[in-house]
């Protein structure tokens, strides 16, 4: 190991550690009562009939942050598509269908629909109970990849036309932005939640545009996570480069 780097690390680490510890000692004690922004957020959420305050913060009060976050996910998908594209010196080799042990297959095929439904349920109840677009989307996307475990790669590729998921991803981002613009066109403000009635507290349709934005995020996350996983699987299983091609060459 490079000696200079260790010295730098020791000096920098000690300095930062001292700074952070000193700061921790000045922080308000853990579990304190003063959360002015948090209290305001709870009131605002209840005024708009949203039971899950976090959904209200994410999709209403700070929906603009979520727009940025969706764009990050969208950018990462585009980035992975670009970075993991097949280059000229690589070729595809469809993998041999692997023998899957029967219990594993049965387990995976049993869990798959359950996990998918769980994902959708978690998305749909975002503004009521813990969960929402992010969590449900990831669960649904990961569930889909149980197929790889349960059946084989070919089966997975058949139920997973990547183009559709990429389009879903892009459309979900677009619809989020369009919903935001609708607020602007209606004469209030970008991403204003004033278009739809707030509904009855603690029901699926409560909260104005929150369920719609939540659904858009759910679609986006599911699409994005699927595409990401697919590209990595592609690299790990299918794409081979020149050095892997023929050992003797």
């Amino acid at each position: 190991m490079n000696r200079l780097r260790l010295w730098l690390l020791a000096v920098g680490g000690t300095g930062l550690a001292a700074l952070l510890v000193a700061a921790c000692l000045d922080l308000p004690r853990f579990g304190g009562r003063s959360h002015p922004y948090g209290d305001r957020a709870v009131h605002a959420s209840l005024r708009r009939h949203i039971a899950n305050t976090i959904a209200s913060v994410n999709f209403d009060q700070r929906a603009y942050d979520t727009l940025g976050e969706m764009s990050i996910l969208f950018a990462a998908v585009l980035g992975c598509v670009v970075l993991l594209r097949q280059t000229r010196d690589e070729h595809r080799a469809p993998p041999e269908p692997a023998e899957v042990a029967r219990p594993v297959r049965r387990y995976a095929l049993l869990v798959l629909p359950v996990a998918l439904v769980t994902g959708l349920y978690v998305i749909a109840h975002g503004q009521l109970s813990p969960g929402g677009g992010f969590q449900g989307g990831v669960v649904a996307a990961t569930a889909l990849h149980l197929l790889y475990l349960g059946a084989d790669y070919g089966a997975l590729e058949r139920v997973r036309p990547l183009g559709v998921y990429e389009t879903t991803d892009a459309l979900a981002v677009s619809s989020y932005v369009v919903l935001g613009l609708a607020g602007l066109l209606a004469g209030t403000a970008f991403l204003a939640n004033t278009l739809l009635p707030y509904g009855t507290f603690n029901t699926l349709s409560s909260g104005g545009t929150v369920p719609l934005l939540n659904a858009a995020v759910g679609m986006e996350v599911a699409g994005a996570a699927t595409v990401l996983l697919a590209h990595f699987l592609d690299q790990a299983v299918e794409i081979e480069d020149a050095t892997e091609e023929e050992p003797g060459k």
Partner: protein
Amino acid sequence: MHHLLPLLVAVPLLGAALPAAAGRRLPRAAVEITGFVVSGGTGALALLLLLNSTPPMTEWVGGWLPVGGQSVGIVVLGDGPALGMATLASLLTLAALAYSWRYFDAPPHGHTGAFTALMLLFQGAMCGFALAGDLFNAFVFFELMSVVAYALTGYRIDEARAVQGALTFGVVNSLGAYAMLMGIALLYARTGELGMSAIGRGLDAHGGPDALVLASFVLVMTGLLVKAATVPFHFWLPDAHAVAPTPVCMLLSGVMVELGVYGAWRVYGTVFAGPGGIPAADLTRALVTLGILTAAVGAVMCWYQRHIKRLLAYSTIAHTGLFLVGLGVLTPEGDDGIALYVVGHAAVKAALFACAGVLLDRFGSVDEHALHGRARSLRATGVMFAIGALGLAGLPPFGTGLGKSVAEEAAGGPLTVGYVLVSAITAGAVLRVTARVFLGLGPRPEDAEYETSGSGEEPETGGLLRRVPDTMTTVPAVLLAAALAVGVAPGFGDLVARSVNEAGSGGAHASAHWTAPGVLLGLAATALAVILAALAVTRPTWLAAPSWAAPLRRLQSGHVGDYVAWLLVGTTLLGALALPGVLGG
């Protein structure tokens, strides 16, 4: 009017998402035209808002207007500097897209729109960061900007260097961003707010600065200064900018790095400038020290490069140092000068990168030694490269010269000498390249041991085009004309000064115009640059790398672990520099 502010983010995002949704079937031309229309339209909107930004606007996204001075929403700022940076980013994106019209070939199969979509996302992210008035929102757009930039930097995945540079860029910048988020969490713990001005008020209400304020200042600044490539956070920049595709380099060097500086200015001015924040003397000490270090390291390293894009990247570092010094003195004149300097520098630097891209396209190399005398036929590009060098030196009446002279006057004393020297050295290096590559002057220089050569790069067009596409010469010409216009257009300087001072600087008004000493200093820097370049070309041994520069070059090791260690040292240094006021307060 203020309701339109979030559109500067929303329009490019929509412009990126819709072609991506439809893009699998769209022809390339349709995607590119969409890109132009969207980025140009956003630029026009930004300009329109900028012209209406007196008095400064604010917008609460989602209509969450504050009740009793407190809101649960996110505030977006629409003042001169914010909209100015957004306009600059938009126009430069437009220029980069125009430049890549024929230049950039080989979109990934089935994803025709990927490059254009990423560029539009980049534009939206830069606009969002520039307009952010909420600290966490700034972090989100900071990350969006970074993520897009990593992908764009590594775009040429056939290139070993491109992917390595992109990874280094990604690791260092992400770590910086996480440090920034730690700082935001500390500020939230103290004040319970996320809006920048609300945090500032909260800090002031709490009393004098303590260790918590210092730590949050250091952590937030670490994130921003990593982006601004301040020494010792700067190592990622040459690695990334040297390998990114040329149109992307124009944006990275032209505005992204400057957005880091802008962020530091904005965060200090809004959050930490009050009595509960970091005392002015400490900020001046920290920023001026780091700025001088950055400018010196950038200038020295710039001089000893042979990889032309890397050389330009180091000159960006050197100039960023000058920006930090100008802002660090905390005078209204300093702010005005730097605002003008940033605008002029963006145009000049983007033009220089565009010219380097022509070399890469023609010869598949950006190596000063290998290209010696080979580019004699590219007269127009050579002339523009030389003009760009003069702009970098701050020759009147370039916008860079105007900004530099105003900033020099604000900094005063020995710092003025620094401004002249640094701009002369970086410009001298570019002139030296011009003389060797485009004119073939002097002997072919010898290779050194520890350096990055610029040979063996893949050309960025699919198959060699018959001649240089017109867009690739028009774009740098327009950019240089813009740099000239910034300095020449009557009243532009005062306009910038007024809008900058309205947003910050406590209402003090200064004016920015040419003065006799400023013109003389600009001429002196240019003359010095010409002399340096002439000496380097005719007497290579006189200005060869001295032994003391070798360790400095060895620090740039290309090793990501080293860069992380330096980042930690940088936070410690920043903390030490700002410590005295906190102890005294």
